[in-house]
Structure formats: structure tokens, C-alpha cells
């Protein structure tokens, strides 16, 4: 569909200036909003700003260009679900399912996140400035060149990294009390991937072991933290000074001797 057609069919709440589209999402149903985003994507639009977002779901789903989207408000569940390539910045908090089964692209949240961040994520990057909820990074996976990354600035709740099969999950614990994360069952069922946690984790799943970081780890972590801090104006050096714990799976076959053959 040609941009001219889109503009012609456009609702009153869309303004396009050069290659930037500005949408007022007040009262717009999620289906209409996402359909609009899809038609803008790949039509010469490089940037979309959506204002007054209150709970619209699936924003960013099925967009495959490298379009940049700025969301103002509180997007609904499954932001960026199955996303393949877009770059979303949220100026507010996100709800559950952010980056659900994301394939590639990027999500930067200036606030907190709900449950299931990056569930089954396969690639791409998610940055959450504050805290996140339950089951962050559950079943993240990697294959060949494709590797997903999640960085949480605050702390996360129970079942962090549950069932991880690949990818990198970083929790920085900025502002937590006594450098202690209260999450329980961290890494339960982990059989792939790596977690870097700044601060102490006191309740781990059986499948996890804690080790020290090596050169490669410091390099990777450094890059991620630098990138994270660049979005929020934070001091990367100060953060990297503290102790990080590296969590890895004990085995890639944690349940090998569970069955009677």
C-alpha cells in the first residue's frame, strides 16, 4: 500500500510530517492501531510517535521494518510480541508479556515491566529501567547466530530465568536494599544461556550454579551495561564496579536420570 493511500484512509488522529507519523491513540481500539502501524511500516515512514496509549495490546507485533516507535502512555499486554525488527521506546511502564517470543528488534522501557518479559524470546534486545515482575526471561532460547538479551535495571520477582535454554539475562539491582534480590526459584529448570546478576541472589533453582566472570563475560557485560546506561543517562562505570554473579546451568540435560528406561 502506498503512503498516499494510507494518508487518504487515515483517521483524524494521525499526522504525518516528512517521514515521521504522529498518532493520538485516545479511544483507538488495538486492532485499528496495529493495523495502522502495519500500513505505515515499510512505506517510507521511519519514525512513529504514539500518544495517549492506555492498554492497547500487541503494539509492534508483525512489524518487520526497522521502524522506530515511541510510545507515550501505558501499552497493553504483549508489547512487541513475535516482533521482527522494529525499535520501540516506551515512555512509561509496560504490562505483561513484553517481548513475548520476540525474534529480533529492540524495546527500551523508561519505567517498570510486569510479568513474563521476554517469554520464549529468540533474538533482539529488551531494556527495562526499573523493576520487572515474575517469570522474566522464561524459556529464552538461542540458536546459531541468534541470541536474545534482556537487561533489567532494578530487581525482578520469582522464577527469574525459569527454564532458560539460551540468551543472556542481566539484572542490575540498582537501588535494591542491601544488594539483595528477593526473587526465589531463580533459574529453576535452566539448561542453557547465562545470567549476570549484580547483587546477591539467595534462592536458586537446583539446575543453576554460580560462577565467577571471565574476560569474555566482562566484555559482553560491559557492552550491555554501556548500552543500557546510554538510554537512561546512568553511570556505567559505577554500576560495573560492583560484584556480579554469573549463573549458568549445571547441565544441559538436567533430568537425565529421572526416568526408568
Amino acid at each position: 500500500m502506498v503512503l498516499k493511500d494510507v494518508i487518504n484512509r487515515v483517521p483524524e488522529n494521525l499526522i504525518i510530517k516528512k517521514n515521521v507519523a504522529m498518532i493520538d491513540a485516545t479511544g483507538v481500539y488495538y486492532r485499528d492501531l496495529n493495523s495502522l502501524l502495519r500500513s505505515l511500516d515499510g512505506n517510507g515512514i521511519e519514525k512513529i510517535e504514539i500518544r495517549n496509549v492506555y492498554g492497547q495490546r500487541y503494539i509492534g507485533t508483525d512489524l518487520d521494518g526497522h521502524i522506530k516507535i515511541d510510545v507515550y502512555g501505558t501499552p497493553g499486554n504483549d508489547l512487541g510480541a513475535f516482533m521482527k525488527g522494529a525499535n520501540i521506546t516506551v515512555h512509561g511502564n509496560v504490562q505483561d508479556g513484553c517481548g513475548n517470543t520476540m525474534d529480533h528488534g529492540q524495546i527500551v522501557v523508561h519505567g517498570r515491566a510486569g510479568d513474563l518479559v521476554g517469554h520464549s524470546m529468540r533474538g533482539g534486545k529488551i531494556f527495562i529501567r526499573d523493576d520487572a515482575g515474575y517469570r522474566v526471561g522464561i524459556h529464552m532460547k538461542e540458536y546459531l547466530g541468534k541470541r536474545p538479551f534482556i537487561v533489567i535495571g532494578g530487581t525482578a520477582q520469582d522464577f527469574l530465568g525459569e527454564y532458560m535454554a539460551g540468551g543472556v539475562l542481566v539484572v542490575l539491582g540498582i537501588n535494591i536494599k542491601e544488594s539483595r534480590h528477593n526473587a526465589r526459584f531463580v533459574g529453576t529448570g535452566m539448561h542453557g544461556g547465562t545470567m549476570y546478576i549484580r547483587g546477591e541472589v539467595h534462592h536458586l533453582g537446583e539446575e543453576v550454579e554460580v560462577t565467577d566472570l571471565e574476560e569474555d563475560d566482562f566484555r559482553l557485560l560491559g557492552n550491555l551495561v554501556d548500552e543500557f546506561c546510554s538510554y537512561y543517562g546512568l553511570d556505567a562505570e559505577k554500576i560495573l564496579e560492583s560484584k556480579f554473579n554469573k549463573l549458568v546451568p549445571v547441565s544441559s540435560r538436567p533430568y537425565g536420570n529421572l526416568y526408568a528406561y
Partner: protein
Amino acid sequence: MKSYVSPEYIVERDQDRCIRCKVCVNQCSYETHYYDEEDDIILSRNENCVNCQRCATFCPTQAITIRENPNHYRSNANWTQEAIAGIKKQAETGGVVLTGMGCDKPNLTYWDRLLLNASQVTNPSIDPLREPMEMRTYIGSKPDSLELDMEECGGVMLKTKLAPQLRLETPIMFSAMSYGSISLNVHKSLARAASEVGTFYNTGEGGLEKSLYKYGDHVIVQVASGRFGVHSEYLNAGAAIEIKIGQGAKPGIGGHLPGEKVSKEISETRMIPVGTDALSPAPQHDIYSIEDLRQLIYALKEATDYTKPVFVKIAAVHNSAAIASGIVRAGADAVVLDGVRGGTGAAPRIIRDNVGIPIEMALASVDQRLRDEGIRNKASVIAAGGIKSSADVLKAIALGADAVYIATAALVALGCTVCQKCYTGKCPWGIATTDLWLTKRINPDLGAKRLAGLLRGWSLEIMEMMGGMGINAIESVRGNRLLLRGVGLTDKELKILGIRMAGE
């Protein structure tokens, strides 16, 4: 007189495979096999074979096949093989036909007609390997409500004092099997496995052997009609006391440990002379009515300063619901129900197979009756009688049991093949015997490992099934009849079990 009863089993030996190692000759305690030196061949006396499969299991070349004697009487749904042979044996001996283990007749098991639920869509199933799955169970009397003090700082202070509880890490315990009906090495294996896994084993009516006192925290001591080995130390040694009124295999009758099995060691623990029959009276002679039971329960509580829960075990019979209600009101901390399939070391076959009712029915009606009377919290309910798999355990809990007792399954884990000849005292697996030459065939270290392995395997399966139902704490299964559906059951059966038909 000549016996008209033909051998039940035929031993077939593949002479090409047989290497004349004579393991079968040594292992068989019934003297079935013998070595003919002249012809360098091993032969068998079919009439002695009981199909325990010890020889077949240990033969290094698998040369032995035990076959049911194909010489059957003519097929007859009424005059079965067993009926005819039984009559002939009785005519020849003028005696009561004995047997061991539990009722083997068909159509008395309801577990196989009950099916469990699983969550689909409306409720997520839970991964027991990754998310917490709680099977911890406390057996004992619970109050209907608690008195609590709320503190300034937000803490909670308990004011009510709870009755003593047993803590089980898995809802499966080892049921009563007397020292005498089974060997000391088996008791050692049971005690060790129970301690390791965090559950309990029951001494049965033969007392607690001295060397096992150290496992006391994981022992339930039984006080049965024969009061064998019952003294103050014994009562205080265990974590709980069980008054045995009856057992599923032989409701209403007493017990009988034949003199052959009363060895020196047995006589020491039971405190009776060597070689005499150990007779357990039919009733407990100080319990002729429900108020007597109350008296005994409190006598035992006094003797142990109210620190141990007191259980009462009955066979599942027609009025189990009313009896159980009486038992609970008499002050018992738990009611144990033993169904018709319960096992034994020795019982008259006619009683084993014809007296008593299935545990599923008794359990369902007892649980419902106690709830109808508002007294279900006062005592735990423990179910027993032929429980053979983890699915049976979970179904029992869904019907209302707090925990189950297993005995036959435990012996099978140790090697038993349920040949039903325990009463002979010649168990070649070293289990149901007190013959020291045989009992050393059970190594308590390996035995404990096998039993712990059994409990572990079943516990994992239970957790998987619970997770599949979207439940992560066993309290939510207990008495939750909606988790069960029946197949092939009549309306009345469904009603008594308190469950719906599959599809409803």
C-alpha cells in the same frame, strides 16, 4: 493317603542353556531342584514348586521357565481350578486352607475404574520439576479453628496448642508387617528407607527389635491383640502408636505365627517361648465396645504423656463409616482403613477372599460420613489394602485419605513375587521368613536403597500428576472428589464414591 491334587507348576529347563552351576539348587528353599551326579543333570520336583521365580531370576543363562501346569480341570466358571483343588486338599487334610498376601480375585479393585483430571486452558498445569510442588503431609488431629495473637510488629503468635502430628515428606508410609512374618533384615531396610525419605514404617504386631530403636522417630509402633513386645519403652520408642483392631486380609479373626517361624530372635522380641505358636486373639480382649476403645486410647496417651498420636486400624467392613465415626469420637488421632486386598503373612484363604470390602468404597464413605458429622478435622484418615501404583495413591488422596500405607508393594520392591506362600516360612527371597540362612539374602543396605527408590519413583510420578491438574500442594488434592471421574461404574457406585461419570 495319596494326594489327588496335581502340581500347580511345571519347571522347564533348557538343557542346552543349563551350565550345571547349581545356583537353582542352592537358591530354592522348597527343595524343588536337585542335581543328579550320575547323569550330570539338574532335575526338578514339580510338586514342590511355588512359582516364586527365585531360580529363574538367578539362573545365569536364563535356562529356567516356570509354567503353569497345563493340566487344568475342565473350564468351569463355577467349579474353578481353585475350588476343586481346594476341596480335595481339605478332604486330604481336614484343615483350613492357608494362603499369604492379599486377595487375588477379580472385580474387587476400583482404582482402575477411576480416572484423574488434568488442566487444559482454563487453568495452567504446573511443572513439578521447575516450580514448587508440595507433598508434605501432617498426620494427626487438627482443630476447627485457631486462637492467635496479633503482635505489634506484625507477627503472629499461636495460642492454641495442637495435638501431636507426624510429618511426612511424601504421603506414603510402610504398613504393618510383623517381625516374625517378615525378617529382621526387611525391618532394617524399611526403617532405614523411611528415615531417609522422611516417612514412617509400622512395626506390625511383632514388636520392635532392639537394634531398630534408633530409628524411633520414623517408627509407628503397633499394639495388637497379642500385645507382643509391648512395654513402656516400646511405646515411647516410636513416633506414634497404632492400635490394631483388624486388618484387611483377615477381618475379624486373630493372627497366627506358626511355631516354625518363632525363632530365638523372634521369641526375644515378642517375649514368648521359642517354637511356640504366636497367637493373636481375634478381638483385643480389653476392647469389647466403643467405650473400651476410648479407654485404651487414653491409656496409651497417658503412658506416653500425650506426646504421640494414637491411630486405630480397622479392616474395611460394611459399617466402616459408623465405626470410624465412633473411633474419631473415642479420641483417635488417625483412623486406618485396610481394604479387602490387604496382604498378610498367613490367613485362611476363604476369609482373605470373602470377608471385608474394597478400600475405595470404605474410604469414600468414611470421609463423607466424617464430614457430614462435622468431625473430619479431628482425625486423619489413612488408606491401605493393595495399593500398587502412584496413581492409586493419588486417587486415594482425592477420595479423602490423608496418606496411604503400602506393604505388598514394599516387599515386591525387595524381590517378592507374590507367590502367596509366606505362611510356609520358606521365602527364598529372604523376606517372609525367619530362617537365618534365608534372611541373609536381604542386604539391608541394598534393601533400603530399593525401598527409597520405590518411594522416590512414586513421589515423582505423584508430583507430575498433581502438576498436570494445576495443583501445587497436596492439601488441594485431599478430598477433592472433583478431580476424579469413573468409568464402568453403576450409578450407586458413583454415588458412594461421590464422583461423577467420565464425560459429566
